């Protein structure tokens, strides 16, 4: 395509965006809304994922051995424990060590006369996969000699469940919203084409190629998608920082909320990618239908 035509075609695309001001506004707004919602879900998932990982990292399993077992017998239970699939490491803690850590830094005199025999031998387990903590817990309970298994699984589990649900929900919502955006942009382009169908007919009659006829509509779709992407990016940024502030102020330390700057690049890429995709495919959808003849 020659240089002077490129400028002309680009200009035609820009002019169309302003000429169909209301539809363009609607298309960009819908695109922004869709992208903001999609990105919000992505960000929630991302942060929740980090939170789940944090919580699980701190998750330990403590196994208490039957109090009738001697230290040597207890240690032999350890080899059975190590045989379990998901056990990465089982650290033996003897009764006296357990007592020592139970007393900790407190005043020794308070615990005067406390017999290590009142404690039980223990194993502190680290897991290969923290997500399978529940299965591992019940497997441990079935090992002979194991009296009790303590695992702090509720918070981690709940968060992991929420995360999974959110993942699926966001995928579904993202898909629906993408389709909505596509349809809206495609309709905007279709209106633009209908508006200019006489012009298009004349262009065809005098021998304009299809790619020449299409190009301004691509530009129009591209501009709509592009503005949608840029606006949604900054709106998302502002919104996110507001919510982050609010969450930090509640003092709920268990929730991880990374600053937006940490996800700036991926967010920009996602916004740009989705904007281009919506813009280009939106116009393609109606152009294909329209230029059949």
């Amino acid at each position: 395509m020659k240089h002077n035509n490129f400028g002309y075609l680009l200009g035609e695309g820009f002019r169309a965006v302003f000429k169909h001001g209301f539809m363009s506004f609607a298309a960009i707004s819908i695109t922004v809304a869709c992208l903001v919602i999609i990105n919000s879900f992505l960000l929630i998932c991302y942060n929740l994922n980090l939170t789940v990982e944090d919580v699980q990292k701190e998750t330990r399993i403590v196994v208490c051995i039957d109090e009738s077992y001697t230290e040597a017998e207890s240690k032999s239970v350890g080899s059975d424990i190590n045989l379990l699939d998901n056990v990465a490491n089982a650290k033996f803690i003897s009764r006296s060590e357990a007592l020592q850590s139970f007393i900790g830094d407190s005043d020794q005199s308070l615990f005067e006369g406390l017999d290590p025999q009142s404690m039980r031998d223990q194993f502190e387990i680290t897991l290969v996969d923290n997500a399978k903590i529940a299965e591992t817990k019940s497997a441990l309970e079935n090992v002979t000699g194991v009296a009790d298994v303590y695992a702090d699984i509720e918070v981690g589990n709940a968060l992991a469940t929420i995360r999974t649900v959110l993942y699926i929900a966001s995928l579904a919502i993202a898909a629906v919203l993408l389709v909505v955006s596509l349809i809206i942009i495609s309709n905007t382009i279709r209106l633009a084409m209908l508006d200019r169908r006489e012009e298009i007919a004349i262009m065809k009659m005098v021998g304009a190629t299809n790619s020449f006829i299409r190009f301004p509509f691509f530009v129009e779709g591209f501009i709509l998608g592009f503005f949608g992407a840029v606006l949604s990016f900054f709106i998302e940024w502002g919104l996110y920082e507001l919510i982050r502030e609010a969450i930090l102020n509640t003092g709920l330390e268990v929730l991880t909320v990374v600053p937006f700057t940490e996800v700036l690049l991926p967010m920009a890429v996602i916004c740009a990618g989705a904007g281009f995709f919506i813009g280009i495919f939106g116009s393609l959808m109606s152009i294909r239908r329209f230029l059949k003849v």
Partner: protein
Amino acid sequence: MIDLINVTKTYETGTHALNGIDMHIDDGEFVFLVGQSGSGKSTIIKLLTAELKPTSGSILVNGYKLESIKRSSIPYMRRTLGVIFQDFRLIENKTVYENVAFAMRVIGASNKEIKKRVPYVLELVGLENKGRRLPNELSGGEQQRVAIARALINNPTMIIADEPTGNLDPARSFEIMLLLEKINALGTTVMVVTHEKGLVDRFTKRVVHIDEGRVISDGMDGYVV
């Protein structure tokens, strides 16, 4: 050069619009295509511009075989034709100059070429002083001159006009015909569809008469019925 050999066209509705047309038009000719309403004249034009494909037969337009033309070649074939319609088909919000320039621009002409060519063609059709007007500020005859200028702007080998004077009074119609005759004298082949017998009889030109999708007469004998 145009060559139609045993061309038929049946529309999806089942209408047999053309039933075996044979017609040959050499470069430089001026031909009237006449016939009753519904005889198939516009169908022939739509076949020549590749808006429709023939049901059978073969069509040659300026070296392009239309029965087997590739979609991507159609625009280039169309650049060898200038087409004019009864209803002018101008872009209402563009000036006369822009309407004509538009046809050059959309086939990729440069601004320089456009600036050089448009005034020349506007002068040829007698609109050198009306370039800045909008179509609705012109008479019907003038609007048709704009359409003729647009058809000529890319220097086609042939002008095809489908009832170019259908919306004009006899005096304007005659002027448009004179203009087409002048264009023909400058070397462009011209084919004019009309059913105005009076107009055809004022010229001594080849007349191809179509009836029910067939050529029933072809010659210099005027509008025979």
